[in-house]
C-alpha cells in the first residue's frame, strides 16, 4: 500500500473530473469527522454553489452571478472513497456522477 501526503491548500479550487474527463466543478471544502482522536476525511464538497455558501453572502452572491450570467449549478458531496487523490492536479471521480449526493444549501454548514 503506497503512503503519501497531500496538501489540502493545493486542492482548493482544483477541478474535479468525472470518469469521462468532464469537469463537474471545483473542490471547495473538505469535511472531516473525529474518530478516536483522529480527524478523518468524510467528504469533499464541489461546485459553484459551494463557493457562494463559503462566502456566506448567499443573496448577494446569487444576484452578482445572475448579473454576470454565470451558471448556478448545484454542487456535489463526494464521499472520501469516491475521489482519486493520487494526482492532486487531476482529481478524478472513482464512480459515476449519478452516484454522488447533491449539495443543497441547507446541507452546507452554517
Amino acid at each position, binding site marked *: 500500500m503506497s503512503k503519501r501526503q497531500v*496538501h489540502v491548500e493545493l486542492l482548493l479550487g482544483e477541478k474535479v473530473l468525472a470518469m469521462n474527463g468532464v469537469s463537474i466543478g471545483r473542490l471547495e471544502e473538505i469535511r472531516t469527522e473525529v474518530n478516536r482522536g483522529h480527524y478523518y*476525511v468524510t467528504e469533499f464538497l464541489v461546485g459553484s454553489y459551494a463557493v457562494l455558501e463559503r462566502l456566506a453572502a448567499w443573496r448577494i452572491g446569487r444576484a452578482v452571478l445572475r448579473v454576470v450570467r454565470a451558471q448556478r449549478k448545484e454542487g456535489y458531496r463526494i464521499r472520501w472513497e469516491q475521489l482519486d487523490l493520487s494526482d492532486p492536479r487531476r482529481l478524478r471521480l472513482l464512480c459515476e456522477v449519478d452516484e454522488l449526493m447533491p449539495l443543497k444549501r441547507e446541507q452546507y454548514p452554517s
Partner: protein
Amino acid sequence: MDLMRDCLDKQLEDGNKRRMGRVDGIILDIEDGRQPHVAYIEVGVKTLMNRLSPRLASLATEPYRIAWGKVKVGLNKVVADVEAEETPALEWELWLRKKVIGRIPGA
C-alpha cells in the same frame, strides 16, 4: 469540522496566546484503500509561496510542521500545544528582535 472554513488561514497561537503566524497549509495522510486523515498543519513562507507558484516556493526555507495531535481548532483561531518562541515559526521574529530592534534605543 471543515478544513478550509475552520482551519486553513486561521490565526495560529501557542498555549500562551502568543501569535505565531497562520495555518498556511494542512497535510493529509493518504493510503490506498484507507480513509485519509489530517496529519499536520504547516506554517511558513514556502507553503504560502507554493499556493501562488511552485517556482516561488523553491526560494524559501522549509516550513514548520505541527502534528495534528498537538492542534486544537477553536472559534476563528487554531491553538497549538507548543511554545511559540521555541519553534521555527518565530525564527525571523527572534532574529529581528536580537539583531535589529533590540539595538535601537527605546525598544
